[in-house]
């Protein structure tokens, strides 16, 4: 395998982390729906927390993406 194709495969492998991020984001918003359904009055408070959790989880996806970019372009 030459270097160029190995880089492509490596970048593909690097973004496997997105599977975990998908599970995480799904869990966050699933829990948000559950908690708002249980207590609609808490919506504003819980929504802020959910957005914070979403941003923190999404950052993990972007770490993987940055690694893929570094492999491909740098």
């Amino acid at each position: 395998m030459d270097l160029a194709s190995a880089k492509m495969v490596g970048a593909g492998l690097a973004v496997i982390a997105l599977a975990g991020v998908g599970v995480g984001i799904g869990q966050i918003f699933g829990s948000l729906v559950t908690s708002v359904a249980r207590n609609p009055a808490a919506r504003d408070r819980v929504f802020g927390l959910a957005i914070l959790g979403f941003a923190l989880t999404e950052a993990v996806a972007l770490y993987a993406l940055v690694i893929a970019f570094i492999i491909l372009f740098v």
Partner: protein
Amino acid sequence: MAAEGSNHIDALGQFQLHPALGAIGASVNFTQSNLMMVIASLLVVGLMWVGMKPRAMVPGRLQAAAELGYEFIMSMCVEQIGPEGRKFFPFVFTLFFFILFGNLLGVFPYFFTFTSHIMVTLALSLLVFVLVTVVALREHGLHFFSYFLPQGIPVVLAPLLVVIEVISYLSRIISLSVRLFANMMAGHVMLEVFGAFIIMLGGLGLLGYVPAALSLGLNTVLIGFELLVAILQAYVFAVLTCIYLHDAVHLH
């Protein structure tokens, strides 16, 4: 900037720094990134200064915006840090609005996003880290180091946990900076890639027009998403700064 007619997508070319302001800028290495920082700072100061000038009882639009920002950050500080949060309000306010305007300016065409450079975000997160550590040392003195040893754990586990806590404390610098940088960079690379798709597919002739229109539509949606991310990441940066400051003031 875009890959006109060619089959190569130059996704990272948009992040290259060029000297701004002609020969004077070139001689002092004043790049377009620095220019955007100055513009962002001037806009923040302008919003606050011009907005708060009328000091009207019933605020106009600009004054409402300025007051909204003030109250938003103030409530965030007090909620996250506690009553001591008022002391740190100016710092968090400056940080939030500098990053927010940097992110938002980057969404405009032909504008440069200075937060898409790791050096800028790393400098910001180092600033936060140093401030948090200094505040913690000033508030608690040497007692601060008990932060690294959670209470009520078995003595056997202590050496391991201290190492983990120290690493997680130090990794704040990296996580804080890479989060902002990666979000902004990934968003702009996506815009660039789909923008290049439009040009490449449009060059194919009639067959390419439909997918080109699709990627144009997707690019439009992505710009809306970028606006959301720009505000969200500034908020996250400010909230995490507040959480770290809370840890520094209260030690757990």
